[in-house]
Structure formats: C-alpha cells, structure tokens
C-alpha cells in the first residue's frame, strides 16, 4: 500500500484512477491505454508542480516518508561484502544504529547509520531509528576500529533524534552522544556523512561531525523537530509549519549556511517514488568525497576537521 502525504491528495487521486483503469482493462481496449497515458502525464506534471514548491514543513514530511530509502537500502545498493557488527561491549546491541565493515568501490570502509525499519515489527525493533546510548557507544567503537585500521567512515543519518527515555537517560544518553561527537572529531581517517532523511539534532550530529556532509535534496537537518519547536516557542502543536519555516532546516538552507557541502538532487516526486537513481547518485557523490580525502595523513585530517568546526561562521 503506497503511503501518500497530506499535500499529495490530488496526486494520490490520479494514481488511484490509473490503477483502477488498469484493473478494468482486462480486454485491453485502446481508449483505456490512451486515457492511462493522459492521466500519467497529468500526474507527472502535478508532481513536478507540487515538488517544485514544497514548504519546509512539507519537505519535513517527505524526509520522513516511510518509503524513502533507508540506511540498509544504501548499504544493500552500494556496499559489497557487508559484515554487520553488533554491540557496544558494555550494555547491549541497539538496532536503531546499524554498522559494520564493507567494501565501497574497491576500498574497505566502516559504515554507520540510523535505521528506522519498514514493517511495524521491524520499526519497533529498531525503535523507529531513535538510538539509545548503546547505539552511540557502538558508533564510537566502530569509529575507533576504523581509526585503528585506517578505514574511511561513511555514515548515513536518518533519525528523529536520540531516544528520550528513562533508561536511555540513566545509561548516559548525553555522555554517549558527546563521546560520539568527540570520536568523530578525533579519528585519523576520512569521515563522510550523508543526511538521507531526517537529521534530528544531537542524535544526528553524533555521527555527522564529519569532513564532508552531503544532504539529499528532500532531507532536513535541525536542532529540534518543528513540532517540538512549535510547542515550546509557540506553545501550541499546530504551528509546526511556521516553526519549520523559521528553523531553516532544508537541504538548500544547509548548503547556504555552510552546514552541508553538497546537495544531492532527487528525482521529481522524491526518492520514495524512484529510489534507484538516488541510490546510484549517492554512490557517485560518496566516491567523489572520499577520493578527495584519501591519502591525507591522520593528523592533517583531524586538524582540518576540528578547524572546520571551530571556525564555523566565525566573524
């Protein structure tokens, strides 16, 4: 069952009609073929028009679309001989944070990423992509592994944020995130992060304090969710659209503000309608970013990465 967003109502209607017609056309009558083609081009136009002027709040919804490619989709498409690695060696294995070893275009890499999961049971198992301290401590462990064996790190960011639960707090959620940021800024190997969906606050930057930050066109990156921001600053939950606007959380904003280096375009209608070209395109951009960083000595890499953040928008 395809999932349509609120503002996609007219598109859903057209696509519904097309499905209906196709279902009816058992006897394949010419009129129906023509009608389907007509509706399809109408749908395409409507998609183009809708997606050309998405508001920041609508973009946020696209970024959260359940059919968007997730971390494991990128791993499946881009990483060969992937070997998942589990656990923080301390408390547990966090399925919201996946990681492991793999080969990306003839080099071995360490892969990290939030994974939201797809089917209900899977989404619950992965805590909807909201990692607990174990997830961040696993990330630290794998980044250190990458450092030790001089493997580049690729991270995929897709989380509403770090999980705000009692247990997570008791096991040191803040410290776990802080250590992940510190580790990102201390490993002598290239780190490239791709924001593929939601870049939710501390839980995102924990694995995205990187040499290069790439963002998909319809992904978002923010210090707080528009809903959270609205409830605090507007004192109401129904101003999420205004908050999304004020927060400046789109990929285009990130590029303008100097937070993201590159915006990776998505096909008309978003990555969830047509994932294959997006998976390929992310692969190309990752290759470019990694190639530019390879061969630098560890100290130079760390110094440059820290300087990038220390000098960030400094007058």
């Amino acid at each position, binding site marked *: 069952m395809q999932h349509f967003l609120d503002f996609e109502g007219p598109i859903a209607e057209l696509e519904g009609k097309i499905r209906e017609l196709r279902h009816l056309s058992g006897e394949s009558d010419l009129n129906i073929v023509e009608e389907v083609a007509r509706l399809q081009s109408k749908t395409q136009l409507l998609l183009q028009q809708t997606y050309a002027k998405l508001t920041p709040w609508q973009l946020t919804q696209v970024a959260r679309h359940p059919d968007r490619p997730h971390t494991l989709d990128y791993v499946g498409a881009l990483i060969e001989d992937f070997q998942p690695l589990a656990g923080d060696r301390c408390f547990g294995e966090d399925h919201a944070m996946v990681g492991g070893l793999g080969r990306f275009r003839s080099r071995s890499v360490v892969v990290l990423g939030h994974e939201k999961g797809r089917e209900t049971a899977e989404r619950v198992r992965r805590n909807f992509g909201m990692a607990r301290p174990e997830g961040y401590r696993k990330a630290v462990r794998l980044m250190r592994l990458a450092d030790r064996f001089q493997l580049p790190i690729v991270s995929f960011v897709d989380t509403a944020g770090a999980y*705000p639960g009692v247990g997570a707090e008791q096991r040191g959620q803040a410290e776990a995130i802080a250590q992940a940021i510190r580790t990102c800024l201390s490993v002598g190997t290239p780190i490239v992060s791709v924001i593929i969906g939601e870049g939710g606050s501390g839980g995102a930057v924990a694995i995205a304090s990187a040499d290069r930050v790439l963002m998909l066109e319809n992904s978002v990156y923010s210090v707080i969710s528009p809903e959270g921001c609205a409830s605090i600053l507007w004192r109401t939950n129904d101003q999420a659209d205004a908050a999304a606007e004020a927060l400046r959380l789109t990929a285009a904003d990130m590029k303008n503000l100097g937070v993201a280096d590159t915006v990776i375009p998505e096909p008309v209608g978003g990555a969830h309608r047509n994932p294959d070209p997006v998976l390929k395109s992310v692969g190309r951009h990752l290759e470019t970013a990694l190639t530019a960083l390879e061969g630098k000595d560890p100290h130079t890499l760390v110094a440059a990465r820290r300087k990038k953040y220390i000098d960030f928008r400094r007058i």
Partner: protein
Amino acid sequence: MSWLSDFIRPKLQAVVRRPAVPDLWTKCPGCDRMMFHKELEAQLQVCSACGHHLQMPVSARLKLLFDDGSYELMELPEVEEDPLRFRDRKRYSERLRLARADSDAADAIAVATGRIGARPCVTAVLDFGFMGGSMGMAVGEGLVRAAEFSKKHKQPLIAVTASGGARMQEGILSLMQLPRTVAAIEDAREAGCPYIVILTHPTTGGVTASFAMLGDVALAEPGALIGFAGPRVIESTVGETLPENFQRAEKVCELGMVDVVVPRSELKPTLVRVLAHLTNGPLPSPEDTGESSTAVAVIA
C-alpha cells in the same frame, strides 16, 4: 473606592513596592522559607534551613572560584546576530534585546582568567538567567575562546554549566556548536590541559550532549538536574513516569555519570585539590588562595 484609589494607587504601589519586596527576600524552592538577600549572598545562595542550592549569579560564581575573588573577564568577540532572522511569537532579535536589558551581559556566557589555588586558570560560566543559558553562536564562541586560551597558555580549563540546551532561535547553527565546542576542548585537552566541568542546576540538552559531559573530572552541585532530555520531554514524548530523584545530581552520580556531588561550600577546595593532583603540583593552603573560610564556616 474612587477612581483615585483604583487607578492612581495601584500605580503608586507598583512604583514603591516592586523594587523593594522581591529583591530583598527570596523564597527557598526547597523548603519555602523566606530568606533575606544578604543572608543568601553570605551563604553562597544556599538555604541554611534545608541546604537547597539556588542558582548563583555569574559574578558571584567567579568570585567564589577565583583566589581572593579576583579575576579578569575576557572580552568576547562579536558573533553573527540572528542570522536566520528567526521569528516565533516574538522576534529573536527582540528576545535578545530584552535579555540584554535584564542582564547587562551580551549573551549567556562569561569567560574569566585568574588564579585558582594559586594556579592560573581560565573559566567559562554559563548564565541560566540569560535565555535559559541556551547555547547559540555566542556561547559557542565563548567556549572556543576559553579553550583556545587554555591551550595557548597551558592553563586548566574550567566550565561551569547551567543550560536548557541549544538555542532554538539559531536553528542548525546552534546544533553546530556541539561539534564546535567539543573540537576546541579536545585541542586543549590534547595539549595537556586539565578540563574540569562543574555541573549546576540545570544542565540539559545540547550542552550535556557536548562539552558538559566530557570533563576529565566532573563535579556536580547538590540537587542539580543533569540530563539529555528534560523531564517534561520524556513524560510527554514517551509517556514514561519518572523515578524518584530522576536526573538529580546525587542519582546521576550513583549511576556513574559524574565524579562527585560537591556542596557549594566545598566547591573551591575540591576544585583546587583536583587541579593540584592533575598537574602533580602543590596543594596550596587556604591562606594562599585568599580563602576567608568564613563562607565555609557559615554553611558548615
């Protein structure tokens, strides 16, 4: 009642009373006791009845930490102001203006240099009174300056935290202060400088998720709320009920997240002791550090 008593008197009352009453007396949040401001000041903002630690003004904090109460404030450079032109129900620029009018500080951080236990140190103090101590570019810049000073002069770096987290009105730019402050602090630590964090009430959000939880040694004040997500967020987002003393310094220490909970009267001597050991240096006597020992006596 005449129009006179209705309209003139309330105004007069406001003029006469407002500065007098709330400034001189403070109700203890711990035991509701009314305390005279001079008494509170002399007791380092600690209730003499129940020991509750009230928030401490930045200048009082610096006086408490530096020898003879003497320090030099570092002039912090300007940062971009409201680059997002953020507006909720109020403009961010307006909120900033109001906060500045209230506090005579430019933002929620002060950085000072001086001697602590006869040792030259640099200290960054967050000001919860200024927009909840929230971390935007100005707070980030203050931390970075403090860390850079520490690294350059090989001096211990001390951070006193009190913050609701990242400053939402600076959007993603406030989130970038997490890696920014951590990068600066790591540079100082790798240069061999001790980095001590003093967590005070409350320290949450982006500040705990960055420099506040990375101290070589972490001291916490009694009763301080320390956590990532605030209690309200946890209750409303995941609907979990909170255990007793959840996120309070004593509990946080019990869970292994800070080294020691230190009453304010013991804060300075504890800090001096830790710094002496980390630098393998002498432990100065209280006279050397200008410790009058009266403040300590009052509390004890």
